[in-house]
């Protein structure tokens, strides 16, 4: 194939993947009547749709809710996940292999089975409509534990033995000695967890009905299907843009890490 053809095809691909986002951004800024057009520029750009969204739904509050939930989940997955991963890789205790196999098994359980009982559990614990119900069920993840374990296996045992001789506790070894060596795996787990948590809609829809506790994607979903948008295309696109923006900004900065993290999910299969 000629190089020109290659670039041509790659450029077509680029248009297919990038144009809809640009169209969304431009549509959110256009006056209502111009939105349908294919062009991206309009002399009448306005912030009216954004004002409309901001007055109709508490989207800033939802943004802060999402930050709180996703950051808590990510911190928990990284801290506890690395502790379990470290124990599985470097500590010799009874039932270690059994635990490892158990965690592999939990990764194979389709969430269709556990979804309803988890909701029932939230009802029984009285946690419906609380931040805890959004955070708790994802505080740990088998996949992250396995990723940490695999990485920690490659840390030389001599390093740990030396630290032990110096009187370091295992907690200190993990957080002071091994963590600084484990930046790639920590970043991978953090990005995957944060993205999954930030973009999840199904679980929030199930356990949160109080508008002031809703996460950002949930609030936008309700805005779209609940009729609050009153079929105003501009407002829909503005809400979608506000929802996409934080992730796209993060992606612009950590693009390489995002892609590498997702590549590691291929191991799941």
């Amino acid at each position, binding site marked *: 194939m000629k190089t020109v053809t*290659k*670039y041509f095809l*790659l450029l077509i*691909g*680029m248009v*297919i993947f*990038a144009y809809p*986002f640009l*169209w*969304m951004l431009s549509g959110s800024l256009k006056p209502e009547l111009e*939105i*349908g057009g*294919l062009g991206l520029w309009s002399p009448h750009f306005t912030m009216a749709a954004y004002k409309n969204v901001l007055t109709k739904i508490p989207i800033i509050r939802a943004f802060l809710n999402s930050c709180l939930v996703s950051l808590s989940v990510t911190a928990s997955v990284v801290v*506890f996940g690395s*502790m*379990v991963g*470290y*124990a*599985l890789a470097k*500590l*010799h*205790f*009874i039932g270690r292999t059994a*635990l490892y196999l*158990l965690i592999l098994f*939990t990764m194979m*359980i*389709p969430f*269709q*089975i*556990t*979804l*309803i*009982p988890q*909701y*029932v*559990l939230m009802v029984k614990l009285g946690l419906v409509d609380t931040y805890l119900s959004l955070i708790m069920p994802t505080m*740990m993840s088998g996949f992250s534990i396995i990723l940490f374990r695999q990485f920690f296996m490659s840390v030389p045992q001599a390093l740990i033995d030396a630290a032990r001789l110096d009187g370091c*506790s*295992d907690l200190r070894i993990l957080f002071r000695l091994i963590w600084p060596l484990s930046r790639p795996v920590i970043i991978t787990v953090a990005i995957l967890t944060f993205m999954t948590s930030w*973009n999840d*809609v*199904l679980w929030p829809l*199930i356990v949160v009905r109080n508008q002031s506790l809703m996460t950002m*994607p949930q609030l*936008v*979903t309700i805005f*779209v299907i609940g009729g609050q948008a009153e079929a105003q295309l501009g407002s829909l*696109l503005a809400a*979608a843009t506000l*929802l996409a923006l934080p*992730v*796209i900004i*993060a992606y612009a900065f950590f693009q390489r890490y*995002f*892609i590498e993290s*997702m*590549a590691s999910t*291929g191991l799941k*299969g």
Partner: protein
Amino acid sequence: MKKRLNIRHAWKQSDKTGFWFVSPYAIFFFLFVAYPLCFSFILIFNRWNIVTPMEWVGLRNFDRMFRDPLFFKSIVNTLVFLLIHIPLQICVALGLSLLLNSKIKMRGFFRAIYFLPVVVSGVVVTILWQQMYSFDDGVLNRLLTLVGLSRIPWIVDPSFAMPSIAIMATWKNVGIYIVLFLVGLQGIPNELYESANIDGANDRQQFWKITLPLLNPTIIVIVVLSTIGGFSLFIEPYVLTGGGPLQSTLSGMLYIYNQAFYFGHMGYAAALGFVFALIILVVVLLQRKLIETEPTS
């Protein structure tokens, strides 16, 4: 006696810190994995709306399921989705990754753009495509009329709606699979192509005899991941079509959600979830069997 000594010995040898380190996971496991699993086995044999006491109905939830046209409809819809989504996804991802893997400039830039829809929430993607699929003034129909073709009723016609969702899902996810294919392609040793060149094999032969067979593990991963994704399809039909028109986009997950949280049939919804999980396991195992080729030395 000797056995007890062994256990005591093993306990002494065992690293107590290990137990401390895994104890948070143990609590998590019992609350959010073991309990829900056990509870689902009770729930599937009961009728329960979460408010009034549970009522034991034996296998009646399953009996009802096999007479429930919507249950079968949701399975058929999922299969329609998968039949379009998986081949489309593999072709697009393979094509783009082959282009990216050749000697071109700005590879990272192109890859980053193709990956963009992956990181964005499914809600954003669905809102976006809802506008693009609009019959009267959507971007796609405007493009079609621009080149002189007639409009397509993307999401208003029952026979088009699910394929439209499959196309949208491909657009959203293909970036992941491009990256997976690139990893696979980089794992193919260059010597294979060199010796094929010496033997006079052309590009097409090299693709069918070397590239594709060696990408088999990647293809299995992609088929399995897409299948699991297809059975978990929820937010796209929920926002785009609400399961319509005429239930043509009712996905399994959406049906479970409606049964549980719209009608309050917790027992029936749990039974549906249970059956769908079994179907996923069986389908994934079958796919592995069917696609996996014997590794040629």
